[in-house]
């Protein structure tokens, strides 16, 4: 019996000290800590209410959806700077398509997703077959998407469409049992379609990364592309699929954003790629590739979301502090990554086999 217990506790120690998981645990830990600080400071103002928590999801779901694709790209050791531009282009397609051209919104959405995937595949081809650094290739994609977006319209177009309204308005309220009757909790808390999409994408992403050969190949490529090739893994195909999937995620994020703001604008989401990348980094995804988890990204998005929320509750701080704190958090996590990685590297030299 005791030996089983010991084995179990050993496993737990192993789990925690394993550098693979350490980053994710750190993210979750810091999120909980910040949330606790908020609860202590602003608990009386309603920071701990379910509504505040649910709004973290509602307000940031589109970033999270895009971060799912970004996480995968980052794990291969790449980067995609085009995500926000592609999302903005998607929003423009939907707004212009439904409101100006009066095309069926389903067609618009399908078209947007097709364009997103094609753009992703195009950039993937530049990276994979022409060996162009991902940074440059996706920068090109970003310029292209923004440019096309401006060619369509320079003005913000608000969306006027029944189906879009219905999708944006769909909400699931949190209920409570009061006097034998289900009533909405107060203050009203809900999740919407975007939140569902976000959570579903995180789950799908996790399954792909952990349970399929394709997902493991993604990690192998990020660890050492040359080796992955010599081990006979389908490197080129995998990279193409990752960029294609990311294009899909960008377009989906664009749809979510369009539902969120119900308009399309060529300058929407300016700098949004950095929000997405920093969410992934805060979630413990290593920019040099090979390390990262969807669940980490999930908490990264929440952690990044909780900061502006705290600043709002504070009321006196300039909202610009949000940017500075995000910058500081990125610094913290990168430093932590550096420490964990070199730490395990140092270990390597001393664990000479006996």
């Amino acid at each position: 019996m005791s030996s089983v217990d010991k084995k179990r506790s050993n496993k737990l120690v192993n789990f925690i000290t394993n550098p693979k998981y350490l980053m994710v645990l750190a993210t979750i830990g810091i999120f909980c800590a910040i949330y606790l600080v908020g609860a202590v400071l602003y608990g009386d103002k309603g920071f701990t209410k379910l509504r505040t928590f649910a709004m973290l999801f509602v307000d940031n779901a589109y970033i999270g959806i895009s971060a799912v694709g970004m996480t995968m790209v980052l794990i291969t050791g790449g980067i995609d700077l085009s995500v926000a531009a592609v999302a903005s282009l998607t929003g423009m397609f939907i707004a212009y398509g439904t409101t100006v051209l009066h095309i069926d919104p389903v067609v618009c959405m399908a078209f947007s997703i097709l364009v997103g995937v094609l753009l992703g595949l195009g950039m993937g081809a530049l990276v994979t077959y022409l060996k162009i650094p991902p940074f440059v290739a996706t920068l090109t994609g970003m310029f292209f998407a923004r440019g096309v977006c401006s060619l369509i319209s320079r003005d913000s177009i608000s969306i006027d469409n029944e189906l879009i309204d219905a999708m944006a308005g769909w909400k699931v309220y949190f209920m409570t049992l009061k006097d034998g009757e289900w009533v909405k909790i107060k203050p009203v808390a809900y999740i919407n379609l975007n939140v569902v999409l976000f959570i579903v994408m995180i789950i799908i992403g996790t399954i792909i990364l952990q349970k399929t050969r394709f997902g493991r190949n993604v990690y192998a490529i990020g660890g050492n592309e040359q080796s992955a090739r010599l081990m006979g893994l389908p490197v080129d195909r995998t990279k193409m699929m990752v960029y294609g999937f990311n294009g899909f995620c960008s377009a989906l994020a664009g749809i979510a954003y369009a539902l969120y703001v119900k308009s399309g604008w060529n300058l929407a989401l300016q700098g949004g790629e950095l929000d997405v990348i920093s969410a992934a980094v805060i979630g413990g995804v290593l920019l040099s590739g090979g390390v990262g988890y969807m669940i980490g990204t999930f908490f990264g998005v929440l952690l990044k979301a909780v900061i502006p929320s705290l600043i709002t509750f504070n009321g006196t701080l300039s909202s610009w502090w949000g940017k500075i704190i995000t910058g500081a958090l990125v610094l913290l996590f990168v430093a932590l990554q550096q420490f964990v990685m070199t730490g395990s590297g140092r270990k390597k030299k001393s664990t000479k086999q006996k």
Partner: protein
Amino acid sequence: MKSRESIFKNKLTWAVIAELAILIVAGILEPNFFSIEFNAETGMLYGSLIDIVNRSAEITIIAMGMTMVIALGGTDISVGALVAVAGAFALKFLRWDVTQYPTPGDYSVMPFILVIIVPMIICTLMGLFNGVLIGKFKLQPIIATLILMVAGRGIAQIATNGKQFTTGYTPYRFIGQGSFLGLPFPIIITIVVCAAVMIFVRKTAFGTFVESVGINPNASRVTGLKSDRIIMIVYTLTGFLSGIAGLIYSSRISSCDSNNAGVNYEMDAILAVVLGGTSMTGGKFSLTGTIIGSLIIRTITTLVYYFGITSESIMAFKAVIILIVIVIQSEPVGKMLATRQARKREAGELRG
């Protein structure tokens, strides 16, 4: 044989050819593209060519530093934010507090020297911050500079309390709008800065050291080069240059705009470097190429304006141009061309 080959292998040649080609197209489309007039009233030369050089000043200056950043195998995406920071602090020193000095006018609250020096010092320090993270703590450049890219604009906003300051102070406006020897003053600044950087890099061994560290940092260290110091110098220099660019930019518009100043400058600067023939993977670099690259970007922008296309849509054209350039520069295409050339040569030898 050998010299001809090396000319065509030289990426600088391609950049020059590209620039000339675009200019010829411009000349055909717009016959008075090359005309330059002297306006006696302002004492300045006017014309599209002058305008191209003038407007490319900020990017050219930043790209000088960016060239070496890329030669080191890195990137600096914080330069745009630093441009905003420099403008914000300069305007802060000119007005100090908009509630106390509500109307913009021809005055400065602080001595003019501080207005110029302090923003540059702040940007230099921010560059040093990047350099320390990358050189000493070995962070990845893109993520290290991401920190200031995100936080920099926040700092700029806080410096000006989120407000947009404007100024009418003549000496300050001279930086971006004045003229000297008939040329717009930004051109003069660009020439001085480029010359200084080139002398520093090529007349000392610094350039070779940068290339060496960019190609193989480990070996460079063992060879006795202080890699971390070289990295820090390059990023600090880039910060300093971004500061200069920021002053020019804010002087041009006589105000500071923390949200929009320098947006996408990092992209344009990197683009200028890549167009100039320096490889994104680091190593050998060419400052002359970068200057031409920056001019190419601006020429395209000017040309596209002639078509009546809006400034935001220019990005699509830029994207197409970059696409062509990077595809030509890419390794597989280069190899393909090389083997075709070799085959041709072999065939020629057989015949001869």
